[in-house]
């Protein structure tokens, strides 16, 4: 292996660097506040769940469809919106543009794994994201509020599911971003991911409404655990068995994706030529 100036720091260096985390978290928060207009406007572009809701509320006007009444559809899509707003991330764009413009070199010089620094930056944006998620969640809770809760989801499971959604979304997005190290740009793979995500995550249709085999497929693929699964848990639509099995699968995917992302970074950084600077 040829010596390379751009490398991922050794473990001993990394451990002492964890002290920088609170500061990095503050920087991430400050950045999200500085770009608050942009962040809020990007949230406004999430119209597709509402477009889908317009169709479903007409379809369910003369009776429930697949266990969803008209108000339950409204609840579902509002919760989907809230969860997506709270847990989405733009890490793919960050990595892709930093690779292209060469800013990634700066990150590689720091004694902290680049993935960790991205994660902390994205975490810093969460307060603002949650603030954006409040309106749809409040409408779901106080205006629409169907009484369709079948199973009371334990608090701990709910928290685990929501954190799981963030972790899975982040690791998958980072893995796609890392593809920019190999391909120069991660936009293509990102579009593919977005298309599949729209189909299998429950973003446009609750996956339980799919015909049998497709619904089973959605249960096994990772997409649902990056969104719809948590929304269904919030709405109390998962029986205890389903819930715990789903959590296990979700966190299993988080572990797998973390390993894959670390691997992609390790291989990718070796190829990285630090264009630009």
């Amino acid at each position, binding site marked *: 292996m040829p010596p390379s100036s751009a490398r991922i720091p050794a473990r001993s260096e990394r451990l002492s660097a964890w002290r920088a985390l609170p500061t990095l978290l503050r920087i991430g928060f400050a950045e999200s506040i500085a770009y608050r*207009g*942009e962040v809020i*406007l*990007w949230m*406004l*572009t*999430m*119209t*597709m769940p509402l*477009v*889908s809701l*317009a*169709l*479903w509320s*007409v*379809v369910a006007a003369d009776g429930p*469809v*697949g266990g969803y009444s008209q108000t339950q559809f409204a609840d579902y899509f509002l919760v989907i919106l809230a969860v997506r707003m709270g847990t989405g991330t733009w890490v793919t764009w960050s990595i892709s543009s930093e690779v292209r413009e060469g800013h990634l070199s700066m990150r590689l010089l720091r004694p902290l794994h680049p993935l960790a620094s991205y994660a902390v930056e994205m975490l810093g944006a969460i307060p603002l994201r949650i603030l954006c998620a409040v309106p749809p969640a409040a409408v779901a809770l106080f205006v629409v509020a169907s009484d369709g809760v079948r199973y009371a989801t334990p608090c701990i499971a709910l928290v685990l599911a929501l954190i799981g959604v963030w972790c899975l979304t982040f690791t998958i997005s980072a893995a796609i971003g890392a593809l920019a190290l190999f391909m120069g740009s991660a936009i*293509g793979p990102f*579009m*593919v991911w977005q*298309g*599949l995500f*729209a*189909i299998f995550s429950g973003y*446009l*249709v609750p996956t339980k*409404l*799919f*015909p049998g085999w497709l619904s089973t497929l959605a249960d096994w693929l990772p997409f649902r655990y990056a969104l719809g699964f948590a929304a269904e848990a919030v709405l109390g639509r998962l029986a205890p068995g389903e819930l715990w099995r789903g959590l296990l699968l979700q966190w299993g995917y988080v572990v797998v994706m973390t390993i894959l992302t670390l691997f992609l970074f390790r291989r990718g950084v070796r190829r990285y030529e630090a264009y630009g600077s």
Partner: protein
Amino acid sequence: MMVDKRQTSATDRYWRIFVARCRLSLTLAAQYRWDFLADGALSFLGLIAGLLPLFVAFEHRTSVRGWSYGEVLLVVGFFTILKAIFSAILLPSLTELAAGVRSGTLDFLLTKPADAQFLVSIARFEFWRLSSLLWGISLCGYAFFRIGRVPGGVDILLALLLLVCGAAVLYSICIFVASLAFVIVKMDSLPFIFSSFLDFARWPASIFRGVVHLIFTVVFPVAILTTYPAEAALGRISLSSLAWGIAWSGALLLLSRLAFRVAVRRYTSASS
């Protein structure tokens, strides 16, 4: 006769500018010829994702507000066609303008001896995005196959006429958004917000009721974009819809022209 001669030379000049712009964009597109294929494949995935709610909904119902499966597919087909035109011809220029307002490069364009709105409108084309036109036309064909009949000649002509009206509405709204970009300087994401609201044109407008329906026929007339052409192709458009579609799209063209002129007059450059 003098006036007449000058006018023809003016159209000639604008035509030459237009052709030059197109050639520039085509050269650019030739660089991205693989993107044509990639974009086509990706837009197919997007099309399937967008159709997903329909697939599932019509598993449970045979018609939605009087629209059968094939008829709604026709609306989605027209939507795909207009979205392709939008993202290939209108959106690139609009994003260029938003960026130009922010960075101040727009000033160069405004000093050129040609109509500002014309120059802004043809700033950039991304022809490879027209690949999804293919999906839209195929979808319309498949929709008629599902409905089980061939549209009449007059119906097709009317549908095309209304499609042009729809494109005019889309263009007018773009010009309104562009005028807004002059006033609110830092508005890079405005075009994207607009294009995401376009998605409401995906279904027949009769899905919406009350105030929302009124908004979607007058203020943000997505009904003219897709529902009217589909109704015309099906041979069941009402005379009032036809008249409204033509009159309102024409009026919007004029209104947006006015708004743009006011915006340019009030524009004070961002850079200096």
